[in-house]
């Protein structure tokens, strides 16, 4: 009797749980997103960064390459930075702080801000321009985006996802 009851409940609940599990929206697909920048990445000065956003028509997000901290490989980002660090190496980072995912800001050195860094407005994490942590609470570096140079030198092509809504 008890097993009959249990199986009835399971048979009744299983379809509901399956129904609640989100299906990927129609039209959701991987996409190589072409992002136009103000200038080619290789012409950035050392310590210079350009912020860019994911296109909103169609609604698109970038896919993080390596994650770290709150970010995970495959997690989505709605913006990023193309940056050349102080050693002259180019990076493309997802915009999300590795602490709790707030969008970081590019802050240039000034009298009360000795280094040019990525600063997070939420809890004060700071990152060097190569993505490593300068100041907590974040403990993991910024996540890279997988990218390559576009055909137009002023563009980069970034791995992304068309969201389908």
């Amino acid at each position, binding site marked *: 009797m008890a097993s009959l009851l249990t199986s009835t409940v399971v048979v009744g609940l299983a379809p509901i749980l399956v129904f*609640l*599990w*989100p299906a990927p*929206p129609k039209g959701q697909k991987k996409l190589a997103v072409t992002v136009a920048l103000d200038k080619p990445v290789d012409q950035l000065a050392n310590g210079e960064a350009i912020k860019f956003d994911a296109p909103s*028509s169609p609604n698109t*997000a970038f896919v993080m390459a390596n994650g770290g901290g709150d970010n995970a490989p495959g997690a989505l980002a709605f913006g990023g930075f193309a940056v050349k660090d102080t050693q002259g190496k180019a990076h493309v980072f997802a915009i999300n702080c590795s602490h*709790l*995912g707030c969008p970081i800001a590019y802050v240039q050195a000034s009298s009360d801000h000795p280094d040019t860094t990525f600063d997070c407005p939420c809890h004060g994490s700071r990152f060097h321009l190569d993505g490593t942590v300068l100041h907590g609470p974040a403990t993991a570096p910024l996540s890279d985006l997988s990218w390559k140079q576009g055909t137009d030198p002023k563009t980069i092509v970034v791995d992304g996802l068309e*969201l389908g*809504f």
Partner: protein
Amino acid sequence: MRIPHPREIQVATVDWLDERYPFTKSVDEALYQRVPNFANAFYYCFGGMVFILVVLQLLTGILLSLYYVPDATGIPAPAYTSVNYIQSTVYLGWLIRGVHFWGANILIIMVLLHMARVYWTGSYRAPRELNWMVGVVMLLLILAFSLTGYLLPWDQKAYFATEVTIKIAGLPPPPQLGEFIRQILQGGPVVGPPTLQRFFTIHVFLLPALITLLMYVHFRFIRAHGISEPM
């Protein structure tokens, strides 16, 4: 034909009903209860005020649902523009939405005051423990109302507040469980149109039904136990 006096129509109608179900008896039992003198203190009214606020929320919520569109696709999304429309164009829309908004805030305060009173007067003690438990469940339902309702205007504050709460909801270990909860709440890879749809359904269909049922249970318990004497 003699025209019956209105009084006779009334008596005949009530008699007809009472022959089929004892309505008069039920109504008398529900209404003619002597309130003990100790329950005349103002702090014994907090629960009733919560009830009135919940009724007010149901009424204003039904009115808002006539104009609100739970659709978050596009920029700006209909969810956002419809709230804007309620605020600025609908006659007295600002008033109805204002009552719903402030009612929700005051409701939480009154629930906490009611709870504090029940604690202070020891009204949770035997045999009333079950009613305290029902009350705690209703407190959680009220908080769930607040959480789901907060997303519906679909502005920046709503969006990012919900992103934080869903992130917290996805924390319980093991990670697969957290991920499961997050997916079920979020309805997709990011907080987006499916999330709004889900929160809207929870806010407008699921929670009102549950809280109505539990309020009924709560009140039947009170009637069964009587109002507790102060310690």
